[in-house]
């Protein structure tokens, strides 16, 4: 096997790309031009000083490099793996303008943070933690937004409790991102790193079910809501109750749990966004015979990122554009997805082409048509409003209409990236800290 085919083989599996070794990292770090007012830093929602940490790698100061990253972004280790760097820092790298490969910022960031985040070093040599205060903050949701908010508050000396409905903390980092970007064990180890800062996590504890809102208010002076989005709603198709029809998120969560094998199965995933693209790629990589991505529009309108689309294609996924599901057939379990063809009408509206139905023989159908908003959840909180898109309304400090409640992450932006959730959590933490210290929080 030459180096190229070895890399391709490595790409085909469920495992994330290998981390850099020291020599690789040095060579790559030395390629960085160290721009002034660097565009990579500007492109990062958490404004990591990218040239700064890269030069620290080059100068053999890994602790310093890790600190530079983690001070801006406490989830720097997972962002290094899951960020769509091609559209963020690496996309902004000036080397693109020289028709050069941009700096491999993501993998350098993993290299810089891995030892610190996944090792058992003393965190408090890394961060100076503020003097302990008497303030106590409750965070709902231990996904990236909640973890970031909690970690920053802990660093500032406050007591923090994170409540999460799931069995395991980490939100979509644990359950949702593709295995070939980051495995579950890595996500969970990063959560441990955050808890090492002194935050408490109560998993399997849903607010509104296991803890009521009143209790939350009585235990905490300020609340941060980082509850993300819900599951993918039913499509309302005939046959949707059959075995083999599922929410793509549940499917991905199962794959992340391990042991899923689709040998002999044919899978259709409905949708054209990031969840759809991950679901098809995952399905292809756990052995499915045929994998179809069924999307009602063309390639250019897909919300999925080009590099993810490329990865799906390289994993053997077949794309079916301009098709939408009509019904699902099967006895007990799925045997086919019935689709019809679509097109743009002259005024740009999507229309069904009459009598265009056809059957796609599949044994599984996964919904990836967008996660539901948790609108009813927010109704439990006085003063917390949602907009017409179901997103929580906040001010520039991520405070809701309730002076005690802040919110951030997917539930605020309608679903973006981990790094945006981290940025929200951090900004909210700063605001909460100011409010607590000035006595302007709820109580």
């Amino acid at each position, binding site marked *: 096997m030459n180096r190229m085919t070895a890399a391709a083989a490595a790409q085909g599996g469920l495992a994330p790309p290998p981390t850099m070794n020291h020599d690789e990292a040095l060579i790559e770090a030395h390629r960085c*031009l160290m721009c002034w007012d660097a565009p990579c830093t500007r492109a990062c929602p958490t404004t990591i000083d990218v040239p700064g940490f890269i030069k620290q790698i080059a100068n053999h100061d890994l602790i310093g490099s890790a600190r530079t990253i983690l001070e801006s972004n406490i989830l720097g280790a997972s962002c290094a793996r899951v960020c769509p760097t091609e559209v963020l820092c690496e996309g902004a790298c000036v*080397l693109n303008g020289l028709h050069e490969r941009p700096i491999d910022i993501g993998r350098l960031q993993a290299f810089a943070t891995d030892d610190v985040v996944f090792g058992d070093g003393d965190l408090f040599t890394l961060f100076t933690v503020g003097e302990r205060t008497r303030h106590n903050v409750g965070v709902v949701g231990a996904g990236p937004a909640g973890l970031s908010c909690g970690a920053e508050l802990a660093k500032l000396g406050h007591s923090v409790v994170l409540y999460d409905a799931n069995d395991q903390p980490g939100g979509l980092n644990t359950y949702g991102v593709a295995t070939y970007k980051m495995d579950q064990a890595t996500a969970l180890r990063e959560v441990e790193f955050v808890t090492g800062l002194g935050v408490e996590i109560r998993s399997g504890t849903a607010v509104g079910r296991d803890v009521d809102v009143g209790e939350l208010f009585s235990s905490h002076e300020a609340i941060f809501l980082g509850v993300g989005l819900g599951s993918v709603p039913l499509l309302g198709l005939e046959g949707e109750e059959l075995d083999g029809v599922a929410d793509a998120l549940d499917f991905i969560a199962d794959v992340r749990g391990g042991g899923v094998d689709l040998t002999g199965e044919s899978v259709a995933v409905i949708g054209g966004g990031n969840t759809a693209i991950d679901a098809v790629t995952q399905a292809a990589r756990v052995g499915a015979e045929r994998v179809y991505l069924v999307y009602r529009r063309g390639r250019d309108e897909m919300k999925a990122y080009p590099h993810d689309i490329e990865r799906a294609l390289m994993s053997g996924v077949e794309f079916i554009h301009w098709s939408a599901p009509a019904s699902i057939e099967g006895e007990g379990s799925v045997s086919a997805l019935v689709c019809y063809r679509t097109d743009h009408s002259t005024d740009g509206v999507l229309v069904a082409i009459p009598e265009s139905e056809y059957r796609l023989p599949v044994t599984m159908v996964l919904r990836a048509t967008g996660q539901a908003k948790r609108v009813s959840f927010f109704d439990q909180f006085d003063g917390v409003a949602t907009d017409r898109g179901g997103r929580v309304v906040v001010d520039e400090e991520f405070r809701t209409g309730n002076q005690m409640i802040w919110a951030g992450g997917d539930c605020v932006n309608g679903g973006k990236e981990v790094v945006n959730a981290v940025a929200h959590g951090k900004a909210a933490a700063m605001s909460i800290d100011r409010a607590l210290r000035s006595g302007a929080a709820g109580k």
Partner: protein
Amino acid sequence: MADLSVNICGIESPNPFWLASAPPTNTGAQIVRAFDAGWGGAVWKTLGDPIENVYSRYSSVDMNGQRMMGFSNIELITDRSLEINLIEIAEVKRRYPENVVVVSLMVDSNPDAWDTIIKQVEQAGADAIELNFGCPHGMSERGMGSAVGQVPEYTCDITGWAKESATVPVFVKLTPNITDIRVAARAAKTGGADAVSLINTINSITGVDLDSFTPRPVVGRMSSHGGYSGPAVKPIGLNMVASIAADPFTEGLPISGIGGIATWQDVAEYILLGATTIQVCTAVMHYGYRIVEGMAEGLSNYLDSKGMASVNELRGLSVNKVVDWQDLDVNYIVKAEIDQDKCIHCGLCYIACYDGAHQAIGVEYKDDETKVWIIDDLCVGCNLCSLVCPVQGCIEMVERDHGQTHMSWNDYLSDEKPGELYPRPKHGLTIGPT
């Protein structure tokens, strides 16, 4: 194909590429391989009373991913017996009569010692001898090497002894560990040297191991100052070669240029500044003998592109382009110009000029980009921005003709100055009292 052959004090060499006296010329077997690879000549690893080396011997300065930018060694002269070396010299010359074998020598400072060894190597077939007055470590403490090279009288005397004994040309290898290299070269010439070779290595400490606090290279728990070579020393070698070439006293004295040579460009530069042959050590220690192929090919293509039939046409063309500062034209005006189409918005020129030079570059973050421009009135034409710019041809220094008269500093100071000094932008008071 240009002719690369050269003649240095009567010795014909198929090309100017020689190996310097060092590990790449330790043994006959190595030199045979080097000649096969294309090297025109080799200066045999310095012979004398064989020594013993310490184990750990080299250390390096690595920069921005470039290994061995600078290289340091604490090796001494040959550790092999004279007898074996002599047999090998004879065998190499028998097999490669067209290639040049110069034998480097270093013995105690007495005429008999020099006489004996010179006769022996001549008999073995050496085309020339090179007196190693350069080695800055180990041998100098024993009264040899740079201990000789640093004292012009010794250099002159010992060169004289060698000339009395030798029938082949005598090269004197100079140490750069001296204030004015011309003094050493003059001494060698006065002693009768047929040519000079330079530079030998520069006294150095490449760094300190930050865990053990021992400088490198670490020998047990100690270190010693070493001889510095490699790409980092080329500018020093070039300057020394040029100043000997330009010195009226040593004018015409053939020079074998050494120091940091790795590519055909390096070779061309040494030759332009007056060298006839060049010698290479560190680059071969890094990449092997094969680098000579690129040197030969590149130099020949370059000469063709300049319409030169022989490398000899190149020699010395830059020597009189090095003048004293006072003779430079103070009315030569250049200003930086940025090609905005090529700019990749890295901001490096801005911050370099702002913090490190004359605050003559403007900046604005607009349309998702760092926009930079030269503030023409403030630009002093220092070149810094064009040096830090990572894009070829993006920042050019453009000559301005404002009708100013050509005028040197000396002219300007003279009673009849030919014209006015073209005004320089200067900052007035930049901070006031608090």
